[in-house]
Each structure stands twice: as C-alpha cells, then as structure tokens.
C-alpha cells in the first residue's frame, strides 16, 4: 500500500470536489491510479488525454510512483 498526495486540477477538481487528498493505493502505474480515481469520482476523461505531474515534473501515465510522491492530474484546459 502506497500513500500519496494527489492534487486535482480544473475539471477533475470540479468533479471530485477536492483540491487535494492523501490517498492509499495498490496501483502500480499512474494510469492505474488515475483509473482507480476515475471510477471513484466518475471522471469522464480518459487517461490518454489527461496529463500527470509527478513531484512537480510532467510524467508519463505509464510511469510508476513511490510512497510519499506528490501527484497532480491535469485535464486539458480550453476555456478562454
């Protein structure tokens, strides 16, 4: 079980109703983690079009993460 800090941005924040949370997970990849959260909060966006930052650097959804990591999920933001 890994404990990570997850920050939600834009539409994902709107849907989850959370700025950030501490989350326990067995997921291995960032994509798996995202799908876990997608199911929990009924996110509509696929992981393929969602960006992720790991410890303040953009990362690949295929990548893994460690206990204590800070993760931000960032959907495309198109308003203007």
């Amino acid at each position, binding site marked *: 079980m890994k404990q990570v800090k997850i*920050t939600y*941005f*834009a*539409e994902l*924040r*709107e*849907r989850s*109703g959370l*700025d950030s949370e501490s989350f326990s997970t067995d997921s291995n990849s960032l994509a798996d983690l995202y799908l876990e959260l997608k*199911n929990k*909060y*009924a996110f*509509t*966006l696929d992981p*393929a*079009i*969602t*960006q992720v*930052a790991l410890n*303040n*650097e*953009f990362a690949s959804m295929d990548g893994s993460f460690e206990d204590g990591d800070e993760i*931000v999920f*960032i*959907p*495309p*933001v*198109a*308003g*203007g």
Partner: protein
Amino acid sequence: MFQISSEPLDVRALSAAIVGSSSGALVTFEGWVRDENEGQKVESLEYQVYHALATSEGKKLLAETLKKFDIHKISAVHREGHLAIGDIAVWIGVTAGHRGAAFDACCYIIDEIKNRLPIWKKEHYTTGPSSWVYCSDHEHHDDHNDSHHQDSIKIDESEYYCRQLELPDVGIEGQQKLKEAKVVVVGAGGLGCPALTYLATAGVGEIKVIDHDTVTTSNLHRQSLFTSANLGENKAHAAKKRLLAMNPLIDVTTVSEALSAENARSLIAGYDIVLDCTDNLKTKYILNDTCYLSGAPLVLAGIHQWQGVLHTFLPKTSETRENSGCFRCLSQEMPADDCVGSCIDSGVIGVIPGLVGGLQALEALRLILTSSAPTSATHSALIDLRTLSVVKIKRKRNFACPLCGDSPGITDIWPETYEIESNSDSIAEFEIDYEDFRKQSNDFVALDVRSLTQRSATDAITDGFTKDMRHIPQTDIETFRALGDEQKYLLVCQHGISSRHLAATLQAAGQSNFYSLIGGLTKVAQQSAN
C-alpha cells in the same frame, strides 16, 4: 446639420432632408475611398475622429458658411472607423435658390473640413505597413485656442512610455525592442482582451488580432476592450479601435476570419511571437504545430472556473527547446473539444481570464525584452486563483512526441491532422432524441442533472419540460448508483454533453437503464420554438 457617423451614409435620405420647394439647386459632394495614394496601392482606410472638437468645429463651420453664401440649407456628414474602397467618407449637400452659390459653398465646406477638423486618416497599403496620412501636415487654426485637445491627440512617445522606461530590463533599448516587435494574438475574448491591452500599452509596435466572432452581451462582463457600443461588431475590429485609442503610437492589423490549418502558416508568417487566447483545443493544437515548425514562440493559456494554465513553447529553431517541449509532448493526441468544459458550460468570472491573459502578455514582453527564456518556457504554471497558488511543473521535450520528438510524424500542417471525430457527432446507443422520448415518455423517469446555477438560468421555454423533474446534480454519483438498474431514467442537462458523459459512466458500471437526452434542453428549446 453636421454629423460624424460610424454607419454607412444614406445619401438619398441626406439629400431629402435639405431639399424644399424653394430650392432651385442642390449641389452635393461625395468624398470616396480610392485605391491609391501617392503611388501606393491602398486596401482600406480608417478614420479616427476627435468627437467633441470635430463636432463643435463642424457646426461652427456650417454656421459660418450659411452667413457667407446666399444659400438655404447645408448638411455635412463625415464617416469614422474602418472604410473599404468605394465607401463614401464624407458627404456634403447644399441647397440654394441658384446654382452658383450652392457650388461655391460646397467647395468652401470640403476645403475647410480638410483644414480644420481633427480627423485622422490611416491608409492600409497592399504592400508595406500602414501609415497615418495628413495627420502630421494637418493644420489646426490657432484661433480656436484649444491646445489642450491637440495635446491629447498628438501623444509624445517619450512621455507616454516614461514610467516603464525607468524599469530595469526596459529603458530606451528595451522600448526600441518593443517597438520593433511583431506579435499575433489569436482570440480577442476573455484572455485576449487583457493580453492585447498590455501588449499595446507597453508599445509592441505591430499587433495582429485574429478573431472571427462578434461581440455579444454575454461577453461584456469579462472582455474588457468592449462596451455595449460594440455589440454585433467583429471582435478584432472592435479591439483594434480600442487599442489604438489607448495607444495611437502602434500599428494594429485585424483578421476577421477564423484561424485554421489552411491559413495558420500565412497568418503568423513574419511575426515574432504568438499568443493563444482561444477557447478551443483544436486551435491550440494547430497553433502549437504551426508555431513550432515556423519558428515562433507560442504563449498558450486556458482557464477553468477559478484556475488557469500557462505555458510558453519554444520553436524548432530555439537552442533551448530541449527543456521546453511542446503542447503535444503533454498530450499527444488532440482530445475532442466537447470532452472538457468550456466557459459556457463551466462558468467564468472576468478576473480569472483577466489575470491569466495578463500573464500571457507578461511572458510575451519577457520574450521580447530579455535574452533568457521566461519561466513558463520551461515550466507550465498551474494557477489556482482561489488560493493564490502557482504550481510550476517542469517540462522537457518528449522524445516520442509526434511533433518535436526524435522521429516526428507531423512535419507540416495538414488539415486532416486536426479532423477528429467529435464525440457529439456520433450518437451512442443510450442517447435519445426528444421526439422519440415523447413517444415513450411513460417508460422513463426524467432526471434534471444540471448544476444549481444552470437551473436558475433556465430558459422559460423549457420550463414546462423541467418543472416537475427530479433534480440530482451530475456530481452526485452515489445517488445515481443507488437508483439501481431497473427503472429507465433519462438524464437531462443543458447541452446534452454532461448527461452523455454521466450516462456513459453509469452504463459502464452496469447500469444500462440510464439514457441521455440528445442536445439537452438547448435542443428542446429549439424544437419547441420551431
């Protein structure tokens, strides 16, 4: 009667207004916009008028003319704003008992209008930059003793910029760089208005504004370049007028067609920096690819409710692009626009695009003024304005990127790259048209899944439909899950997008009894109106 008009002139009505039964002659003069001046081909031109002075001086001129000549009535109208070749720029009509006095008076008025009225003409040439003509050799009569008005029109450059000339990184040298800079702003909306304001007033010498949209009432709360006087006007044209009024020392050109894969390269050719202030992902991807290949840095932004993102992407030609990457490095495939909320669906308050658009101008100014790339060229800024927090996410070029990766597939701008099937174009099995729903409405329980604010803004036409409907906000997923999988439910939202996403989510979880109303209440309102 003397008038300044921003509308095309109705010469028949103008003549009719001064003709009477005692008139033996009507002499009219029409000044037209012609296609050349001093050997230069002119495409169009623009008149700027100092209203208070032009109107009072014009009235005085007509009163004088009536005294000076034996005539009955005079009317003179001068246009302002943007005029095309063949448009009437000035119209003068004089009625008199005999033709001689009418001809003389008409000649006198046009000569005096040219001499005395504070009206400036800017010609746009087919080749080369536009320039103001006869504003420098325009003669004011000293006798009206109105030096204050003249000062407000002839702006002293060093005085205008004196406050920023003192700023480190600007100075005379920086100001000259700004004057020589050419920046394109795509989209003159919530982000574009503040970005344009600060680029123009900082003295960016040439600004191109691209926007195909017209100003509507719902724009005014956040798009700060426009007022109710601009309603219905093209945004690029309206923005230009306002920008030149704020800083007449710069050049502003406009494009009133939408930026597309077909025209993107030619529209940004010759410009140093591009700002993406659009509200759709497709244009952002077109600009990302075009700017990268054409060698122009791109300052791209987006907002969602109280948050914004800001990135600056450096082009192929940049030596430091390794740490910059491009928009496709972050999300290689272009998502359909209807997958994310827009300002229409999600709501927006003016200060958010105001601040984020202002930051776009800032990054462009940093690109012009300093030799090192701005922070957003290597870090994307995630801005949360509710908590005043900015998280900077470090970027690097993605070697697998289809545009800037090691073996790129996108090497030119092909329109088909940007033709993706919008989710809304294909209809899912669980989507139902309003007409079909009405035929089998007894089988369904309809649920209004809009947010509370959307509900309070309900169009009266659809009230009959939504009046007795149970309301469950779309975010309340647990309540939907608790509804089980037997009774058929029809989910109804404003545009049919949120309800489709929600139905898809529930369907995927085994609740195949949830359906979505195609086009939402907007479509119901249209169908009720027809």
